[in-house]
């Protein structure tokens, strides 16, 4: 039995109400925690793309992909290991503005070193945005936490695969 590892699940679906329930139920009934989930438009018109991160053993992952693909409105589902994908997360930090004036140099260095950016500044607070891998976001979190983080949020993973996904061809084949 292999060790559980993080897999990035990519699902192409029709854009229909209720599909989130249907997909999440497949994980829920097997008592599997979803690490992160993101749904958006895809490169194809009217087709949604989901990116889900779960930690599983490979054989369990394969079975779940089968169950996902079985859903009527799922066009295709894939799973990939981390090194088969290019992936990012995004996060926002809300911090009191006085630090920006009192500790300006230190904060500017942190932002520059971490490839982050300031999104907005006002009298009460300013907001830093950073996209990258989880570890990079965590380093920035640690460095900024000394200033007191008023609010923090991190997005689900978004990912593209190194390999081609032949969804358009599959859909074309259906038309003919």
């Amino acid at each position, binding site marked *: 039995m292999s060790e559980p590892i993080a897999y990035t699940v990519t699902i192409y679906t029709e854009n229909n109400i209720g599909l989130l329930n*249907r997909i999440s139920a497949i994980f829920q*009934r097997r008592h599997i925690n979803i690490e992160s989930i993101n749904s958006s438009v895809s490169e194809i018109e009217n087709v949604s793309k989901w990116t889900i991160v779960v930690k599983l053993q490979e054989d369990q992952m394969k079975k779940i992909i089968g169950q996902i693909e079985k859903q009527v409105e799922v066009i295709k589902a894939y799973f990939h290991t981390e090194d088969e994908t290019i992936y990012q997360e995004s996060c926002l930090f809300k911090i009191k503005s006085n630090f920006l004036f009192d500790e300006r140099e230190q904060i500017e260095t942190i932002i520059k070193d971490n490839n982050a950016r300031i999104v907005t500044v006002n009298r009460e607070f300013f907001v830093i945005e950073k996209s990258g891998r989880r570890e990079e976001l965590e380093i920035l979190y640690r460095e900024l936490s000394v200033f007191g983080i008023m609010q923090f949020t991190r997005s689900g993973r978004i990912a593209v695969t190194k390999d081609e996904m032949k969804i358009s061809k599959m859909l074309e084949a259906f038309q003919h």
Partner: protein
Amino acid sequence: MKDTQTLEKDQTTTASTIRISGSEAIIRCLIAEGVDILYGYPGGAIMPVYDELYKFRDQIHHVLTRHEQGATHAAQGYARISGKVGVAMATSGPGATNLITGIADAQIDSTPMVCITGQVASHLLGSDAFQETDIIGISTPVTKWNQQITKASQIPEMIAKAFYIARSGRPGPVLIDITKDAQFEQFDFSYEKCKGVRSYNPVPKTDIDDVKAAALLINSAKKPLIVWGQGIILSEAEEELKALMEKAGIPAAWTILGASAIPTAHPLNIGMVGMHGNYAPNVLTNECDVLIAIGMRFDDRVTGNLATYAKQAKVIHFEIDPAEIDKNVKTDVAVLGDAKESLKQLLPLIKTNSHPEWHQEFKDLYTIEYEKVIKDDLYPTKEGLTMGEVLKEINICTKGNAAIVSDVGQHQMIACRYAEFTTTKSNITSGGLGTMGFALPAAIGAKMSAPERDVVAIIGDGGYQMTIQELGTIFQQKVPVKIVVLNNEFLGMVRQWQQLFFEKRYASTEMTNPDFVAIAKGYYIDAQKVTKREDLKAAVEEMMACEGPYFLEVRVEKEGNVFPMIPTGASVSEIRLE
């Protein structure tokens, strides 16, 4: 009954557009899909549709069940005996939630069914309105597909899609929830049957290379064993399976839902696999060299402990649902596709064979099972009546031509073990979900779907009381089903487990039962009770000769057990005979 069985209409497309209400459109869609009978229960949010059912009552027959659960099981019985899509209808809220057990049952047993529920008006959705419930959310995990409709114009396309999805590929239940405003709304109606859904590939194409690989294994096998499931019945591959068995001389066993696909009397039909299946096919599963699984899903009640299941064998899996491949048992050759099509491609590649020594092993083990179990079940010498002898009398009286609808528990295992079948689609039971209360309403649906067949429901005293109110449906609709209650005044299967694994602590399994004969007679159904062996034959004969519905209660021994048995967690080869 005859006048309600209208011929399937060939109305794939209604040529011109007509302006009608959403509710009239629903009925016209059902008629276009060939629906002649549906089962349901009216209520506030579905009333416009019932008003149309009244107007169309000479074209489509609505059967008022006594509970919405009964409607789903009746629709299942209708579907299982005919292969057609069963239809159930209910109102919103409790009407809809009462469908859930039947939907879950249809999902796990791959039964084609379309359920239509009324819903509160769309402007009330999410407001906790009277009889509002999120039936789409609730039914999602137990439906093949579901959809809410809030505009009349969506009705034709969605109902067409519902029937297509329910019946195609691996069949299953679909639920369509229609808001009341959509039922009232007028729109320009036309109907076209669904021919495909782009994200859905119901039948994977059989790959000839996989078929060749399967043929190679089968042709080189010394001890091949076929285990078939309901997939044979759903794809109507009975003749192809029989041809394979006979050409290659392969003994073949069945799962509970595969029963009746091949006649019981066929010499290569070696019985049932699984927890209470036959001795030989269970034991020899762990001795065969090639296991050919066709249209079955290696349920845990079939395999016992997976770690010791058929480990010595090469496994070939013929299967329509890719998600079933390697789900429970690792296969060496997976042949995806429709069973009928795959077997058709396989047959010319198969060499004639007979395997007489291998057959003898089955015969030897059958003799052991006969001496230790079957003889006492069918020809008991002790005083108490056995469930097995009741089945034997039914077999003799019906000559194996009846459809047997069983409930869940000891009597179900006995019915599946001992019922003799000559005709396919004749074993109707709740396999995967194990739904007590299934049989009585399912028998109604089966009999109405196939009025020319004898339909005998075999039910325990526990399950009978879960849907006993459907006697009202039988009475009102004059459905001539034969109801046999095997009464041991216990929830027998649970009691058996308590005896074997819980040191006879009979927690809440003993039943104090009412006068079942009086209840049947209260519904004006002919009825009698048998307590002595010498009265059994005549009672069964009287029941089968009766023109109308008939209720027969048989008092069987209180603490009879079903054997053979594979205890939970044990290997199939560790099956116990006592």
